[in-house]
Protein backbone atom coordinates (compact mmCIF):
# COMPACT_ATOMS: atom_id res chain seq x y z
CA UNK A 1 0.00 0.00 0.00
CA UNK A 2 2.84 2.35 0.88
CA UNK A 3 4.41 1.74 -2.51
CA UNK A 4 1.11 2.39 -4.31
CA UNK A 5 0.65 5.65 -2.41
CA UNK A 6 4.20 6.66 -3.36
CA UNK A 7 3.43 6.02 -7.00
CA UNK A 8 0.31 8.13 -6.86
CA UNK A 9 2.38 10.96 -5.38
CA UNK A 10 4.99 10.55 -8.08
CA UNK A 11 2.34 10.62 -10.78
CA UNK A 12 0.79 13.76 -9.37
CA UNK A 13 4.22 15.40 -9.14
CA UNK A 14 4.87 14.52 -12.81
CA UNK A 15 1.49 15.86 -13.85
CA UNK A 16 2.13 19.18 -12.09
CA UNK A 17 5.61 19.47 -13.59
CA UNK A 18 4.19 18.77 -17.04
CA UNK A 19 1.46 21.38 -16.58
CA UNK A 20 3.96 24.02 -15.47
CA UNK A 21 6.20 23.34 -18.45
CA UNK A 22 3.24 23.45 -20.82
CA UNK A 23 2.16 26.78 -19.31
CA UNK A 24 5.69 28.17 -19.75
CA UNK A 25 5.86 27.19 -23.42
CA UNK A 26 2.42 28.69 -24.02
CA UNK A 27 3.56 31.91 -22.35
CA UNK A 28 6.66 32.02 -24.55
CA UNK A 29 4.53 31.47 -27.65
CA UNK A 30 2.17 34.26 -26.63
CA UNK A 31 5.04 36.66 -25.97
CA UNK A 32 6.37 35.85 -29.44
CA UNK A 33 3.07 36.30 -31.24
CA UNK A 34 1.65 39.33 -29.41
CA UNK A 35 4.12 41.87 -30.82
CA UNK A 36 3.23 40.71 -34.34
CA UNK A 37 -0.42 41.52 -33.79
CA UNK A 38 0.43 44.74 -31.97
CA UNK A 39 2.52 45.87 -34.91
CA UNK A 40 -0.12 44.85 -37.44
CA UNK A 41 -2.89 46.48 -35.41
CA UNK A 42 -0.97 49.71 -34.90
CA UNK A 43 -0.06 49.82 -38.59
CA UNK A 44 -3.67 49.45 -39.61
CA UNK A 45 -4.76 52.02 -36.99
CA UNK A 46 -2.20 54.58 -38.15
CA UNK A 47 -2.05 53.78 -41.84
CA UNK A 48 -5.57 52.87 -42.89
CA UNK A 49 -6.87 56.44 -42.58
CA UNK A 50 -4.30 57.69 -45.11
CA UNK A 51 -4.91 54.81 -47.45
CA UNK A 52 -7.11 55.62 -50.42
CA UNK A 53 -7.10 55.21 -54.16
CA UNK A 54 -5.00 58.36 -54.57
CA UNK A 55 -2.24 56.77 -52.52
CA UNK A 56 -1.84 54.06 -55.16
CA UNK A 57 -2.20 56.16 -58.33
CA UNK A 58 -0.90 59.63 -57.43
CA UNK A 59 2.62 61.01 -57.26
CA UNK A 60 4.07 62.57 -54.11
CA UNK A 61 3.05 66.20 -53.68
CA UNK A 62 5.38 69.02 -52.63
CA UNK A 63 5.64 69.83 -48.92
CA UNK A 64 2.60 71.71 -47.67
CA UNK A 65 0.31 70.46 -50.38
CA UNK A 66 -2.11 67.86 -49.04
CA UNK A 67 -2.91 64.58 -50.74
CA UNK A 68 -0.72 62.77 -53.21
CA UNK A 69 0.45 59.18 -53.10
CA UNK A 70 3.28 56.76 -53.61
CA UNK A 71 2.52 55.48 -57.12
CA UNK A 72 6.16 55.95 -58.13
CA UNK A 73 7.42 54.08 -55.05
CA UNK A 74 5.05 51.16 -55.59
CA UNK A 75 6.09 50.81 -59.22
CA UNK A 76 9.72 51.34 -58.22
CA UNK A 77 9.61 48.54 -55.64
CA UNK A 78 8.06 46.17 -58.17
CA UNK A 79 10.69 47.10 -60.76
CA UNK A 80 13.57 46.72 -58.29
CA UNK A 81 12.34 43.34 -57.06
CA UNK A 82 11.65 41.99 -60.56
CA UNK A 83 15.09 43.06 -61.74
CA UNK A 84 16.69 41.61 -58.60
CA UNK A 85 14.91 38.31 -59.37
CA UNK A 86 16.12 38.38 -62.96
CA UNK A 87 19.70 38.66 -61.67
CA UNK A 88 19.57 36.70 -58.41
CA UNK A 89 17.29 33.75 -59.16
CA UNK A 90 19.20 32.27 -62.15
CA UNK A 91 22.49 32.62 -60.25
CA UNK A 92 20.97 31.07 -57.13
CA UNK A 93 19.41 28.21 -59.09
CA UNK A 94 22.62 27.55 -60.99
CA UNK A 95 24.69 27.53 -57.80
CA UNK A 96 22.14 25.30 -56.03
CA UNK A 97 22.24 22.88 -58.96
CA UNK A 98 26.02 22.86 -58.86
CA UNK A 99 26.00 22.09 -55.12
CA UNK A 100 23.83 19.04 -55.79
CA UNK A 101 25.50 17.78 -58.98
CA UNK A 102 29.02 18.19 -57.60
CA UNK A 103 28.20 17.31 -54.03
CA UNK A 104 31.22 16.67 -51.82
CA UNK A 105 33.80 18.39 -54.03
CA UNK A 106 35.98 21.12 -52.57
CA UNK A 107 34.45 23.85 -54.71
CA UNK A 108 30.90 22.82 -53.78
CA UNK A 109 31.76 22.97 -50.08
CA UNK A 110 33.38 26.37 -50.56
CA UNK A 111 30.30 27.70 -52.36
CA UNK A 112 27.97 26.37 -49.68
CA UNK A 113 30.12 27.95 -46.97
CA UNK A 114 30.21 31.27 -48.83
CA UNK A 115 26.42 31.23 -49.32
CA UNK A 116 25.89 30.59 -45.60
CA UNK A 117 28.16 33.50 -44.70
CA UNK A 118 26.47 35.78 -47.23
CA UNK A 119 23.09 35.07 -45.66
CA UNK A 120 24.46 36.44 -42.41
CA UNK A 121 26.00 39.60 -43.86
CA UNK A 122 24.12 42.74 -42.69
CA UNK A 123 22.16 44.17 -45.60
CA UNK A 124 23.75 47.62 -45.17
CA UNK A 125 27.11 46.02 -45.92
CA UNK A 126 25.62 44.63 -49.13
CA UNK A 127 24.52 48.18 -49.91
CA UNK A 128 28.06 49.51 -49.43
CA UNK A 129 29.36 46.71 -51.62
CA UNK A 130 26.89 47.61 -54.39
CA UNK A 131 27.82 51.28 -53.97
CA UNK A 132 31.49 50.46 -54.47
CA UNK A 133 31.18 48.19 -57.48
CA UNK A 134 28.11 49.57 -59.30
CA UNK A 135 27.29 53.14 -58.18
CA UNK A 136 30.86 54.51 -58.26
CA UNK A 137 31.83 53.10 -61.68
CA UNK A 138 28.47 54.12 -63.17
CA UNK A 139 28.83 57.57 -61.70
CA UNK A 140 25.49 57.74 -59.92
CA UNK A 141 22.61 56.06 -58.12
CA UNK A 142 20.47 53.80 -60.28
CA UNK A 143 17.78 51.14 -60.42
CA UNK A 144 20.47 48.72 -61.59
CA UNK A 145 22.58 49.33 -58.50
CA UNK A 146 19.58 48.83 -56.21
CA UNK A 147 18.50 45.66 -57.98
CA UNK A 148 22.08 44.39 -57.86
CA UNK A 149 22.20 44.89 -54.08
CA UNK A 150 18.88 43.05 -53.64
CA UNK A 151 20.08 40.26 -55.97
CA UNK A 152 23.19 39.79 -53.82
CA UNK A 153 20.87 39.21 -50.85
CA UNK A 154 18.56 36.89 -52.82
CA UNK A 155 21.15 34.67 -54.51
CA UNK A 156 22.43 32.79 -51.43
CA UNK A 157 18.87 32.31 -50.13
CA UNK A 158 17.80 30.79 -53.45
CA UNK A 159 21.01 28.75 -53.65
CA UNK A 160 20.48 27.03 -50.32
CA UNK A 161 16.74 26.43 -50.78
CA UNK A 162 17.30 25.08 -54.28
CA UNK A 163 20.01 22.77 -52.96
CA UNK A 164 17.81 21.46 -50.15
CA UNK A 165 14.83 20.95 -52.44
CA UNK A 166 16.89 19.22 -55.14
CA UNK A 167 18.41 16.91 -52.55
CA UNK A 168 14.92 15.74 -51.59
CA UNK A 169 14.41 14.33 -55.10
CA UNK A 170 15.04 10.57 -54.80
CA UNK A 171 18.23 9.35 -56.42
CA UNK A 172 16.19 6.59 -58.11
CA UNK A 173 14.40 9.13 -60.33
CA UNK A 174 17.69 10.31 -61.76
CA UNK A 175 18.70 6.74 -62.53
CA UNK A 176 15.30 5.91 -63.99
CA UNK A 177 15.63 8.83 -66.39
CA UNK A 178 19.24 8.06 -67.34
CA UNK A 179 18.27 4.42 -67.95
CA UNK A 180 15.73 5.60 -70.54
CA UNK A 181 18.65 7.00 -72.50
CA UNK A 182 17.90 10.56 -71.45
CA UNK A 183 21.07 12.70 -71.43
CA UNK A 184 22.37 13.99 -68.11
CA UNK A 185 21.47 17.66 -68.75
CA UNK A 186 17.92 16.79 -69.79
CA UNK A 187 17.52 14.51 -66.76
CA UNK A 188 18.62 17.32 -64.46
CA UNK A 189 16.31 19.88 -66.04
CA UNK A 190 13.19 17.88 -66.85
CA UNK A 191 13.18 15.34 -64.04
CA UNK A 192 15.20 16.58 -61.06
CA UNK A 193 14.44 20.31 -61.37
CA UNK A 194 10.86 19.65 -62.41
CA UNK A 195 10.23 17.43 -59.38
CA UNK A 196 11.72 20.00 -56.99
CA UNK A 197 9.98 22.95 -58.65
CA UNK A 198 7.30 23.47 -55.98
CA UNK A 199 9.85 23.72 -53.19
CA UNK A 200 12.18 25.91 -55.23
CA UNK A 201 9.31 28.29 -56.08
CA UNK A 202 8.54 28.54 -52.37
CA UNK A 203 12.13 29.50 -51.67
CA UNK A 204 12.11 32.11 -54.42
CA UNK A 205 8.91 33.71 -53.11
CA UNK A 206 10.29 33.80 -49.57
CA UNK A 207 13.44 35.46 -50.92
CA UNK A 208 11.24 38.01 -52.73
CA UNK A 209 9.37 38.70 -49.50
CA UNK A 210 12.67 39.18 -47.73
CA UNK A 211 14.14 41.70 -50.19
CA UNK A 212 10.95 43.70 -50.76
CA UNK A 213 11.24 44.82 -47.15
CA UNK A 214 14.89 45.87 -47.38
CA UNK A 215 15.71 49.57 -46.90
CA UNK A 216 19.39 49.76 -45.98
CA UNK A 217 20.88 48.35 -49.21
CA UNK A 218 18.73 50.74 -51.28
CA UNK A 219 19.68 53.94 -49.45
CA UNK A 220 22.86 54.54 -51.42
CA UNK A 221 22.18 52.39 -54.47
CA UNK A 222 18.66 53.09 -55.79
CA UNK A 223 18.63 56.18 -53.56
CA UNK A 224 15.01 57.21 -54.06
CA UNK A 225 13.28 59.60 -56.41
CA UNK A 226 10.49 62.14 -55.87
CA UNK A 227 9.56 61.91 -59.52
CA UNK A 228 8.28 59.28 -61.86
CA UNK A 229 11.11 57.16 -63.22
CA UNK A 230 11.39 53.63 -64.53
CA UNK A 231 14.80 54.15 -66.12
CA UNK A 232 17.40 51.55 -65.20
CA UNK A 233 20.19 54.12 -64.98
CA UNK A 234 18.41 56.78 -62.88
CA UNK A 235 17.67 56.75 -59.18
CA UNK A 236 14.35 55.08 -58.47
CA UNK A 237 11.87 55.34 -55.67
CA UNK A 238 10.95 52.38 -53.48
CA UNK A 239 8.34 51.94 -50.77
CA UNK A 240 10.87 51.23 -48.05
CA UNK A 241 13.07 54.25 -48.75
CA UNK A 242 10.01 56.47 -49.24
CA UNK A 243 8.61 55.33 -45.91
CA UNK A 244 11.96 56.01 -44.28
CA UNK A 245 12.23 59.50 -45.79
CA UNK A 246 8.67 60.43 -44.90
CA UNK A 247 8.81 58.95 -41.41
CA UNK A 248 11.83 61.05 -40.36
CA UNK A 249 10.41 64.22 -41.94
CA UNK A 250 8.88 66.93 -39.71
CA UNK A 251 5.62 67.14 -41.72
CA UNK A 252 2.54 65.41 -40.25
CA UNK A 253 1.11 64.82 -43.71
CA UNK A 254 4.23 62.94 -44.83
CA UNK A 255 4.31 60.99 -41.58
CA UNK A 256 0.74 59.83 -42.20
CA UNK A 257 1.73 58.72 -45.68
CA UNK A 258 4.71 56.85 -44.23
CA UNK A 259 2.28 54.82 -42.11
CA UNK A 260 0.19 54.06 -45.18
CA UNK A 261 3.31 53.02 -47.10
CA UNK A 262 4.42 50.75 -44.27
CA UNK A 263 0.96 49.19 -44.23
CA UNK A 264 1.00 48.51 -47.97
CA UNK A 265 4.49 47.02 -47.77
CA UNK A 266 3.55 44.79 -44.88
CA UNK A 267 0.51 43.49 -46.71
CA UNK A 268 2.53 42.80 -49.86
CA UNK A 269 4.96 40.67 -47.84
CA UNK A 270 2.13 39.05 -45.90
CA UNK A 271 0.28 38.23 -49.13
CA UNK A 272 3.43 36.63 -50.56
CA UNK A 273 3.92 34.49 -47.46
CA UNK A 274 0.28 33.43 -47.36
CA UNK A 275 0.49 32.67 -51.08
CA UNK A 276 3.43 30.37 -50.41
CA UNK A 277 1.53 28.57 -47.69
CA UNK A 278 -1.46 28.10 -49.96
CA UNK A 279 0.70 26.76 -52.78
CA UNK A 280 2.57 24.32 -50.55
CA UNK A 281 -0.42 23.22 -48.53
CA UNK A 282 0.54 24.89 -45.25
CA UNK A 283 4.04 23.46 -45.05
CA UNK A 284 6.07 26.34 -46.40
CA UNK A 285 9.70 25.48 -46.14
CA UNK A 286 11.80 28.27 -44.69
CA UNK A 287 15.30 28.59 -46.08
CA UNK A 288 16.60 30.03 -42.86
Amino acid at each position, binding site marked *: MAIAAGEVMLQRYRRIKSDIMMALTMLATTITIVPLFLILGYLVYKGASSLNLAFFIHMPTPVGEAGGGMANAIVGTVELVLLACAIGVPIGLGAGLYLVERRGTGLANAIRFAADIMMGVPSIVVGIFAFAIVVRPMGGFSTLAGAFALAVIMAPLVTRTAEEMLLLVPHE*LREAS*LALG*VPQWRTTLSVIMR*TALGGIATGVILAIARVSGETAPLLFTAFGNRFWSTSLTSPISSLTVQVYTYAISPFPDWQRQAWAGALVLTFIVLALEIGVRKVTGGSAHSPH
Partner: protein
Amino acid sequence: MSAKINIRHLNAYFGAHHALHDINMEVPERQITAIIGPSGCGKSTLVRCLNRMHEVVPGARADGEVLFDGENIYDSEVDPVRVRRRIGMVFQKPTPFPTMSIEDNVAAGLKLNGIAASRSERDRVIERSLRQAALWDEVKNQLNKPGIGLSGGQQQRLCVARALAVEPEVLLMDEPCSALDPISTARIEELLLELKANYTIVIVTHNMQQAARASDRTAFMYTGDLIEYGETKQIFTNPARRETEDYITGRFG
Protein backbone atom coordinates in the same frame (compact mmCIF):
# COMPACT_ATOMS: atom_id res chain seq x y z
CA MET B 1 21.25 -19.95 -79.76
CA SER B 2 22.76 -16.60 -80.63
CA ALA B 3 24.26 -14.37 -77.97
CA LYS B 4 22.63 -10.96 -77.72
CA ILE B 5 25.14 -9.84 -75.13
CA ASN B 6 28.57 -11.29 -74.75
CA ILE B 7 30.42 -10.31 -71.58
CA ARG B 8 34.19 -10.75 -71.77
CA HIS B 9 36.66 -10.21 -68.95
CA LEU B 10 34.44 -7.65 -67.27
CA ASN B 11 35.77 -6.08 -64.09
CA ALA B 12 33.94 -3.43 -62.10
CA TYR B 13 35.09 -1.21 -59.27
CA PHE B 14 33.69 1.21 -56.72
CA GLY B 15 36.70 3.38 -55.96
CA ALA B 16 39.28 0.92 -54.63
CA HIS B 17 36.75 -1.85 -54.11
CA HIS B 18 36.93 -4.52 -56.80
CA ALA B 19 33.26 -5.52 -57.14
CA LEU B 20 33.26 -7.83 -60.18
CA HIS B 21 36.12 -10.18 -61.01
CA ASP B 22 36.68 -11.12 -64.61
CA ILE B 23 33.11 -11.99 -65.57
CA ASN B 24 32.60 -13.98 -68.77
CA MET B 25 29.10 -14.89 -69.88
CA GLU B 26 26.82 -14.96 -72.88
CA VAL B 27 23.23 -13.76 -72.70
CA PRO B 28 21.09 -15.50 -75.34
CA GLU B 29 18.62 -13.55 -77.44
CA ARG B 30 14.90 -13.68 -76.55
CA GLN B 31 15.40 -15.69 -73.43
CA ILE B 32 15.21 -14.88 -69.76
CA THR B 33 18.49 -14.97 -67.94
CA ALA B 34 18.31 -14.84 -64.15
CA ILE B 35 21.16 -13.77 -61.90
CA ILE B 36 21.01 -15.05 -58.34
CA GLY B 37 23.31 -14.82 -55.36
CA PRO B 38 23.47 -13.43 -51.83
CA SER B 39 23.34 -9.68 -51.12
CA GLY B 40 26.47 -7.84 -52.10
CA CYS B 41 27.64 -10.53 -54.52
CA GLY B 42 27.69 -8.13 -57.45
CA LYS B 43 24.55 -9.18 -59.33
CA SER B 44 23.12 -5.65 -59.46
CA THR B 45 26.52 -4.28 -60.43
CA LEU B 46 26.70 -6.81 -63.25
CA VAL B 47 23.35 -5.80 -64.83
CA ARG B 48 24.18 -2.15 -64.34
CA CYS B 49 27.36 -2.72 -66.32
CA LEU B 50 25.28 -4.00 -69.24
CA ASN B 51 23.75 -0.60 -70.01
CA ARG B 52 26.55 1.53 -68.60
CA MET B 53 24.53 2.58 -65.57
CA HIS B 54 27.33 1.38 -63.26
CA GLU B 55 29.47 4.43 -64.02
CA VAL B 56 26.65 6.80 -62.97
CA VAL B 57 27.65 6.23 -59.34
CA PRO B 58 30.51 8.59 -58.37
CA GLY B 59 33.82 6.74 -58.24
CA ALA B 60 32.52 3.68 -60.08
CA ARG B 61 34.22 2.32 -63.20
CA ALA B 62 34.40 -0.82 -65.26
CA ASP B 63 36.79 -2.39 -67.75
CA GLY B 64 36.62 -5.33 -70.09
CA GLU B 65 34.19 -5.86 -72.93
CA VAL B 66 30.45 -6.11 -73.22
CA LEU B 67 29.58 -7.00 -76.79
CA PHE B 68 26.06 -6.01 -77.70
CA ASP B 69 25.23 -7.53 -81.10
CA GLY B 70 28.98 -7.80 -81.54
CA GLU B 71 29.72 -4.16 -80.71
CA ASN B 72 31.65 -3.36 -77.54
CA ILE B 73 29.57 -0.89 -75.54
CA TYR B 74 32.68 0.05 -73.54
CA ASP B 75 34.47 1.20 -76.68
CA SER B 76 35.62 4.79 -76.15
CA GLU B 77 33.60 5.94 -79.17
CA VAL B 78 30.30 4.58 -77.89
CA ASP B 79 27.92 7.09 -76.32
CA PRO B 80 26.42 5.61 -73.12
CA VAL B 81 23.18 7.50 -73.80
CA ARG B 82 22.67 5.55 -77.06
CA VAL B 83 23.42 2.28 -75.28
CA ARG B 84 20.74 2.99 -72.69
CA ARG B 85 18.15 3.66 -75.36
CA ARG B 86 18.66 0.17 -76.74
CA ILE B 87 19.02 -1.59 -73.39
CA GLY B 88 16.21 -0.60 -71.03
CA MET B 89 16.11 -1.06 -67.30
CA VAL B 90 13.56 -1.52 -64.53
CA PHE B 91 14.66 -0.96 -60.95
CA GLN B 92 13.95 -2.49 -57.58
CA LYS B 93 11.72 0.32 -56.38
CA PRO B 94 8.98 1.50 -58.74
CA THR B 95 10.08 4.95 -59.91
CA PRO B 96 7.29 6.69 -61.83
CA PHE B 97 8.10 10.37 -62.35
CA PRO B 98 6.01 12.07 -59.65
CA THR B 99 5.19 15.18 -61.67
CA MET B 100 3.83 13.21 -64.62
CA SER B 101 0.52 11.56 -65.43
CA ILE B 102 0.32 7.89 -66.35
CA GLU B 103 0.48 8.61 -70.08
CA ASP B 104 3.27 11.16 -69.69
CA ASN B 105 5.26 8.63 -67.72
CA VAL B 106 4.96 6.11 -70.52
CA ALA B 107 5.85 8.72 -73.13
CA ALA B 108 8.66 10.19 -71.00
CA GLY B 109 11.39 8.37 -72.89
CA LEU B 110 10.14 9.82 -76.18
CA LYS B 111 9.60 13.31 -74.88
CA LEU B 112 12.81 13.65 -72.84
CA ASN B 113 14.84 12.21 -75.69
CA GLY B 114 13.38 14.81 -78.01
CA ILE B 115 11.86 12.19 -80.28
CA ALA B 116 9.17 14.01 -82.21
CA ALA B 117 5.91 12.11 -82.31
CA SER B 118 2.52 13.16 -83.59
CA ARG B 119 -0.41 13.02 -81.22
CA SER B 120 -1.73 9.80 -82.75
CA GLU B 121 1.73 8.21 -82.83
CA ARG B 122 2.23 9.07 -79.20
CA ASP B 123 -1.17 7.62 -78.27
CA ARG B 124 -0.33 4.47 -80.17
CA VAL B 125 3.00 4.07 -78.36
CA ILE B 126 1.29 4.63 -75.00
CA GLU B 127 -1.38 2.04 -75.64
CA ARG B 128 1.04 -0.51 -77.09
CA SER B 129 3.48 -0.13 -74.17
CA LEU B 130 0.77 -0.30 -71.52
CA ARG B 131 -0.72 -3.40 -73.20
CA GLN B 132 2.70 -5.04 -73.33
CA ALA B 133 3.13 -4.27 -69.64
CA ALA B 134 -0.33 -5.78 -68.93
CA LEU B 135 -1.53 -2.53 -67.42
CA TRP B 136 -3.74 -1.09 -70.19
CA ASP B 137 -7.05 -2.48 -68.98
CA GLU B 138 -6.50 -1.17 -65.47
CA VAL B 139 -5.55 2.38 -66.42
CA LYS B 140 -7.09 3.10 -69.83
CA ASN B 141 -9.76 5.32 -68.28
CA GLN B 142 -7.40 7.33 -66.09
CA LEU B 143 -4.41 8.01 -68.33
CA ASN B 144 -4.20 11.62 -67.20
CA LYS B 145 -4.10 10.75 -63.49
CA PRO B 146 -0.73 10.95 -61.68
CA GLY B 147 1.46 7.85 -62.01
CA ILE B 148 2.23 7.82 -58.31
CA GLY B 149 -1.46 7.31 -57.53
CA LEU B 150 -1.25 3.70 -58.68
CA SER B 151 -0.56 0.71 -56.41
CA GLY B 152 3.03 -0.52 -56.05
CA GLY B 153 2.53 -3.40 -58.48
CA GLN B 154 0.83 -1.14 -61.02
CA GLN B 155 3.61 1.42 -60.64
CA GLN B 156 6.20 -1.24 -61.40
CA ARG B 157 4.29 -2.29 -64.53
CA LEU B 158 4.08 1.38 -65.45
CA CYS B 159 7.87 1.49 -65.24
CA VAL B 160 8.05 -1.57 -67.48
CA ALA B 161 5.75 0.20 -69.96
CA ARG B 162 7.92 3.30 -69.77
CA ALA B 163 11.03 1.25 -70.50
CA LEU B 164 9.30 -0.54 -73.41
CA ALA B 165 8.02 2.68 -74.99
CA VAL B 166 11.47 3.56 -76.34
CA GLU B 167 11.55 0.10 -77.99
CA PRO B 168 14.71 -1.31 -76.47
CA GLU B 169 16.06 -4.70 -77.54
CA VAL B 170 17.04 -5.81 -74.09
CA LEU B 171 15.27 -5.32 -70.77
CA LEU B 172 17.37 -5.41 -67.61
CA MET B 173 15.44 -5.88 -64.38
CA ASP B 174 17.14 -5.30 -61.04
CA GLU B 175 15.04 -7.15 -58.45
CA PRO B 176 11.81 -5.79 -59.95
CA CYS B 177 9.58 -7.71 -57.54
CA SER B 178 11.33 -7.28 -54.22
CA ALA B 179 9.07 -4.37 -53.22
CA LEU B 180 5.89 -6.09 -54.41
CA ASP B 181 3.34 -8.42 -52.85
CA PRO B 182 2.99 -12.02 -54.15
CA ILE B 183 0.04 -11.21 -56.44
CA SER B 184 1.85 -8.32 -58.11
CA THR B 185 4.95 -10.50 -58.31
CA ALA B 186 2.97 -13.19 -60.14
CA ARG B 187 1.72 -10.55 -62.60
CA ILE B 188 5.25 -9.38 -63.34
CA GLU B 189 6.41 -12.98 -63.85
CA GLU B 190 3.59 -13.64 -66.32
CA LEU B 191 4.58 -10.45 -68.02
CA LEU B 192 8.20 -11.60 -68.33
CA LEU B 193 7.11 -14.78 -70.07
CA GLU B 194 5.02 -12.75 -72.55
CA LEU B 195 7.80 -10.24 -73.21
CA LYS B 196 10.29 -13.00 -73.89
CA ALA B 197 8.85 -13.42 -77.39
CA ASN B 198 10.22 -10.01 -78.39
CA TYR B 199 12.86 -9.04 -75.86
CA THR B 200 16.02 -10.36 -74.34
CA ILE B 201 15.57 -10.18 -70.58
CA VAL B 202 18.10 -10.24 -67.77
CA ILE B 203 16.61 -10.32 -64.28
CA VAL B 204 18.38 -10.04 -60.96
CA THR B 205 16.46 -11.73 -58.20
CA HIS B 206 16.76 -12.68 -54.56
CA ASN B 207 13.93 -15.09 -55.00
CA MET B 208 15.21 -18.46 -56.11
CA GLN B 209 11.74 -19.79 -56.86
CA GLN B 210 11.29 -16.87 -59.19
CA ALA B 211 14.50 -17.68 -61.02
CA ALA B 212 13.52 -21.34 -61.24
CA ARG B 213 9.99 -20.54 -62.48
CA ALA B 214 10.64 -17.79 -64.93
CA SER B 215 14.12 -18.07 -66.38
CA ASP B 216 15.73 -20.11 -69.12
CA ARG B 217 19.24 -19.69 -67.87
CA THR B 218 20.57 -18.89 -64.43
CA ALA B 219 23.84 -17.40 -63.27
CA PHE B 220 24.97 -17.82 -59.70
CA MET B 221 27.28 -15.17 -58.33
CA TYR B 222 29.19 -15.03 -55.10
CA THR B 223 31.53 -12.29 -53.78
CA GLY B 224 31.98 -10.72 -57.18
CA ASP B 225 32.69 -13.96 -59.04
CA LEU B 226 30.47 -15.73 -61.52
CA ILE B 227 30.47 -19.17 -59.90
CA GLU B 228 28.23 -21.06 -62.28
CA TYR B 229 26.12 -20.30 -65.31
CA GLY B 230 23.91 -22.68 -67.25
CA GLU B 231 20.41 -23.92 -68.06
CA THR B 232 18.11 -23.06 -65.19
CA LYS B 233 16.95 -26.67 -64.86
CA GLN B 234 20.51 -27.88 -64.59
CA ILE B 235 21.52 -25.21 -62.06
CA PHE B 236 18.61 -26.03 -59.78
CA THR B 237 18.63 -29.83 -60.12
CA ASN B 238 22.22 -30.68 -60.77
CA PRO B 239 24.59 -27.83 -60.00
CA ALA B 240 28.19 -28.45 -60.95
CA ARG B 241 29.69 -26.39 -58.17
CA ARG B 242 29.50 -26.97 -54.47
CA GLU B 243 28.84 -23.27 -53.70
CA THR B 244 25.83 -23.22 -56.02
CA GLU B 245 24.34 -26.25 -54.37
CA ASP B 246 24.90 -24.81 -50.90
CA TYR B 247 23.18 -21.58 -51.91
CA ILE B 248 20.14 -23.04 -53.65
CA THR B 249 19.56 -25.53 -50.87
CA GLY B 250 19.64 -22.70 -48.38
CA ARG B 251 22.79 -23.69 -46.56
CA PHE B 252 24.04 -20.09 -46.70
CA GLY B 253 23.09 -16.74 -48.09
